[in-house]
């Protein structure tokens, strides 16, 4: 097995308009979906109570509802899980009282033999979590732009952030389509992807910068395009290998890791694919377009000054 793209004629730059169009379409679709269907917010974000039950026998929705009815509660939804449906998730809109929670713990401990997991959240806490996550992404972006501007130049930083927001938005879109529950681990996954996306983009940019330093004179778009394409081809094997290995880990978590981190693993998987795509097709290409414009502007200015 060997990826060697060194002598191949792959031309990423030629198709850049298609990539931009594709991503723009995705963003528009995502915006429409998010404003209409929206996200399936878990109780981490909306006031509510989630109860996770484990039984030694196979469960049915009716059985779970009956058990709750016997202590005077009616769940708003019941979901079965596990290989033999031995687990169940019951959720309630609104926070159960402490007496109810204790009743649930006593009841299911007695009838199923295992303590249930119970989590409750009030709306304030949920809203704060979402707000904090939003701030996290914004502040991380600002920090990264500053770092990249110092180490590279401003245009690299801005292009990297566009790619990063693209990836985060892509995960949101997929979660809107699949209507999978958005919970606290989901936020962790989005933030991880922010880290991964930036990591991936920086590696590519690093190579572009290095190749730029070998060039004697960059005259215009054509020269820049050649450098960008060369850099993408050179880092391609690394990009594929890295994303593959992390995908192995994320996929293993998704398939074997159990309910608790399923959302996390799925969001991660989606984000990894988006992150690699955006590093190759969006970030570097955006930089190319912007850089060539600023080159032209400079040349125009120099010409004016000389005149």
């Amino acid at each position: 097995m060997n990826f060697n793209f060194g002598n191949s004629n792959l031309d990423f730059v030629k198709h850049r308009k298609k990539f931009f169009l594709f991503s723009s379409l995705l963003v528009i679709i995502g915006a429409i979906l998010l404003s209409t269907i929206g996200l399936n917010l878990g109780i981490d974000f909306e006031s509510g109570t989630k109860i996770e039950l484990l039984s030694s026998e196979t469960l049915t929705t009716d059985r779970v509802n009956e058990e709750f009815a016997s202590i005077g509660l009616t769940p708003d939804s019941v979901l079965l899980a596990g290989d033999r449906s031995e687990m169940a998730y019951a959720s309630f809109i609104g926070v159960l009282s402490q007496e109810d929670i204790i009743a649930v713990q006593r009841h299911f401990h007695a009838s199923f033999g295992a303590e249930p997991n119970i989590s409750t959240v009030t709306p304030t806490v949920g809203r704060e979590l979402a707000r904090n996550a939003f701030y996290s992404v914004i502040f991380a972006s600002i920090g990264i732009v500053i770092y990249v501007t110092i180490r590279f130049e401003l245009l690299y930083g801005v292009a990297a952030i566009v790619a990063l927001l693209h990836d985060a938005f892509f995960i949101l879109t997929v979660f809107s389509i699949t209507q999978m529950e958005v919970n606290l681990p989901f936020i962790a996954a989005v933030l991880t992807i922010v880290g991964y996306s930036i990591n991936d983009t920086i590696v590519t940019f690093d190579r572009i910068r290095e190749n730029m330093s070998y060039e004697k004179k960059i005259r215009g778009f054509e020269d820049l395009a050649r450098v960008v394409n060369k850099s993408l081809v050179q880092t391609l094997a690394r990009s594929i290998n890295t994303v593959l290995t992390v995908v192995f880990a994320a996929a293993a978590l998704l398939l074997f890791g159990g309910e608790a981190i399923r959302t996390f693993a799925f969001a991660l998987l989606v984000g990894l694919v988006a992150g690699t795509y955006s590093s190759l097709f969006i970030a570097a290409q955006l930089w190319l377009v912007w850089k060539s414009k600023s080159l032209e502007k400079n040349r125009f200015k120099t010409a004016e000054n000389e005149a």
Partner: protein
Amino acid sequence: MVKKGRIAAFFLIVALLAGLVATTVMDVAKEIKLGLDLQGGFEVLYEVHPAHEGDVIDDEVLKSTVTALNQRINVIGVSEPNVAIEGENRIRVQLAGIEDQQAARELLSTEAQLSFRDVNDNLMLDGADLKQGGANVTFSETNQPWVAVTLNSASQFADVTRQVLGSQLVIWMDYEEGDSFMEEVLKPESERKFISAPSVDEVLNTTNVVIRGTFTLEEAQFLADVLNAGSLPVKLEEMYSNSVGAALGEKAMEMTIYAGFIGVALIFLYMLIYYRFMGIIAVITLSFYIYLVLVIFNWMNAVLTLPGIAALILGVGMAVDANIITYERIKDELRTGKTTMSAFKAGSRRSLSTILDANITTILAASVLFYFGTMAVQGFAVMLIVSILTSFLTAVYGSRLLLGLWVNSRALNKKPRLFGVKESEISEL
């Protein structure tokens, strides 16, 4: 001329590392503290409200509330509870691995505001007049359990009993504004909100008071415990709670660790197939990396949670990336026709700044996560930062050291296939 000494040094180092890991890994694994999502337990986030109108919630009040909560947890006997102030008016309590979650929950949030009032609900004495630690269970002649409490001042109690002489002194637990003795006394005894209402026939100049009620032994013991633990100076409102049954926690842990093993095994396999000899080095350094992260985690006294395990596994991905960047560079250099030794040198040098930039930006993102995140996200962020720093040490310097020994031994000279480079790909210089 192959320098066998270098190769011997390589095997010596690997043997030493393997020995270290093999002899201590079990202890390290055992010492790791598991979060409550992995061993069961529960967590509550309280918002602190003033107990009396006009009270101010400041640092001082929050600290004394934490002290009171800790005392209560001592009553239940939980090892290593975690009670922390969060923000300006929040307190988070985490109790991992406790047997009786219900009892703990009741004990924690019971405000335990004992008050003595007259029949018109006027406050005569409250929890602050009780002597700390002075409550215990006593028994009546008929073996009915009662609770004996000690007051701070005998003369104060004399004053109070003088005022209510000929009437009743009502003993309330958690009296709330609007509660009325006159209403409660009409209800059947089991539904009354006050504990007892003894008649006062004489002025009592004593510090010893017995609360007579129809308690079961357990109720009496609970009341005495709560009183001894000290009354909370504030009201606590539950904002968020999460309780995990022990069996479910254990199941989640088993599944995640199993998934982790599969993920890591796949990564190892891929590295071996793709990078051949360098893959072996990667597997050695990655294994040591996982061990080292766990050791550092123990040093930090950190608690391993589900997201933590996920971050650890992802950290493997990050460490792999550092290896991949370096190895790809070395392959690039080999393809240009450089000798193994100079390809190794140039590849290592050139990959360093890339890895550095990529890791620093990720650490930046993780730091922001830590700053804004709640506890679970913070645990994840810490794990991510530790992972990145450790991966930097093992994947960059560990790899370089081990691979360097082989390269410098010259045993690998003119064997590009061992690095995954075909002879046909090498361009003539």
